[in-house]
């Protein structure tokens, strides 16, 4: 018998969920779409212009990943709880000797690992950069770290919406909407707008909360602990809200 703790059962949930991505076509479809879209956006003459820039860096890639994730990550997150609640397996799950925290985190970590794995599959880009020039490995590393952390935030946001609705489509739309909002508030235009109407202080608050700003810090090659902490704390906040919400609505 396993020892009782707050995270009893996390490992078995994590394993089941991670296997789930590869036992259905869903995981493979996601990977294919992500690789094709990210590759195309990076290299395309209309978007990333990777070849035209003639720089040994992946800025074009890092510019478009947040926008790709806006669509793709909520698509991964949407089924995590909505499906369990719709099919009733949530009742089975929560009557196992497994805590809600363990199931929630197990699902989150499995999803995050899957997204991290998809990111790793973009290695041909790194290979090409290294072949064509002398890249700054530090920038590449912090850039990828930024992408991974961003994926975690988006996943935590998407999971909350998956927890509060049984309808996957609704979960997807809400998840996408909120992640887009968090990207938009960090754009210079939005900051300027808020700064003009509400004053510089509001602008500073918004900037501090902006996913975009912290993401760009990392992709510029700055290993800023504040930004890493921001991502982790933001993710944790959404996860905790999601757990509280799920505990309230799980039986309805």
């Amino acid at each position, binding site marked *: *018998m396993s020892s009782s703790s707050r995270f009893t059962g996390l490992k078995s949930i994590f394993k089941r969920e991670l296997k789930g991505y590869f036992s259905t076509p869903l995981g493979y479809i996601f990977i294919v779409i992500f690789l094709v879209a990210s590759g195309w956006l990076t290299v395309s003459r209309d978007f990333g212009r990777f070849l035209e820039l003639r720089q040994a860096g992946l800025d074009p890639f890092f510019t478009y990943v947040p926008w790709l994730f806006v669509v793709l990550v909520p698509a991964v997150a949407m089924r995590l709880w909505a499906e369990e609640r719709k099919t009733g*397996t949530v009742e089975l799950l929560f009557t196992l000797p*497994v805590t809600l925290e363990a199931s929630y985190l197990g699902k989150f970590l499995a999803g995050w690992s899957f997204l991290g794995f998809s990111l790793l599959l973009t290695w041909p880009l790194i290979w090409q950069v290294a072949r064509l020039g002398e890249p700054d490995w530090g920038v590449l590393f912090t850039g990828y770290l930024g992408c991974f952390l961003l994926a975690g935030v988006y996943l935590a946001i998407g999971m909350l919406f998956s927890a509060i609705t049984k309808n996957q489509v609704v979960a997807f739309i809400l998840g996408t909407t909120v992640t887009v909002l968090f990207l938009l508030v960090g754009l210079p235009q939005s900051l300027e707008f808020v700064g003009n109407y509400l004053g510089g202080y509001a602008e500073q608050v918004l900037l501090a909360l902006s996913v975009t700003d912290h993401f760009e810090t990392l992709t510029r090659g700055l290993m800023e602990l504040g930004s890493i902490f921001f991502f982790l704390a933001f993710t944790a906040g959404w996860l905790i809200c999601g757990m509280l919400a799920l505990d309230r609505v799980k039986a309805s």
Partner: protein
Amino acid sequence: METMTKEQDPSNHQDAEQAAGPAAGDEPVSDPQPAGEVLVEVADLFKHYGPIKAVDGISMTVRRGDILGFMGPNGAGKTTAMRILTGFLAPDSGSVRVCGHDISSDSLAARQRIGYLPENAPAYGEMTVTGFLEFVAEARGVADIDSAVSRVIGLAELRKVKHQTIETLSKGFKRRVGLAQALIHDPEVLILDEPTDGLDPNQKAVVQDLISSLSKDKCIILSTHILDEVERVCNRAMIISQGKLLVDSTPKELIRRAPGHNVVVLQLSEDPGALAAKIQDAEWCDVVEASDRTLTIYPKNGESRLSEILELAKGSGLESVEQQEGRLDDLFRQTTQGVSR
């Protein structure tokens, strides 16, 4: 019905047995049950959904060896009660103890001792039967997963389908997968929400036989609205309606108390008028209905008066005699329709 209303009385189980004993009449009403150790203790359970009282003050104790049938109309609160018992829902007030562990404050230990088949036997459709059972075994911390899985695959007769994904299975097999997962850790308490609902008669029989075979060292609580199932499988029966526990007894005792128990129907070759008057005069007789050549006799209190009736009917051209058993359906309807909110 008042005598059978024993809510909020933790000792009602024994009361029911005692009542069933000496007052039983000509046949033993229930096998004397060994007073097994108490495995589930429920005290003053309440649960509201807005203005609706889903569970309205249920108390009970369930012992090792009990197979308790939870009967009640749809929406009576059976599923809510079971969800509270298994720790899925928190009650508004009241407590549940499973093998001494409180389901709220010591939830994981209590859940460890329960095997639960939720309504409609939900399972992860994309997993294979074996994969799913392995997952449940691992999440439950079963030490030897392989042998536990093969044991329940044998018990629930799933060998033929063990490599199939669950979504490809028929309803009967899915239900058996649900039972197998509930049994994987060999729990002391088994809670089954409508285990045979929606199955064909053959599948029902298989599931019922499986449940009967499990009962010896466990306590089983199952909900159903198939009353025959309670008669066949259970040694204890409860009727719940609008969240209240109305009856806690044994199936045989319920049959005895059911309207129409020990009613005698006589077929006569001559006009029954004279005999009807004679029987009507007997002090034990409640009502006699006469029609054409048939007499239907309702003894008072549902007691068996067959020998007296035969004595009186001598020389009246008796062609056939039939003594009827009470019908659980009738008691069920009578009990659950009389409740007001």
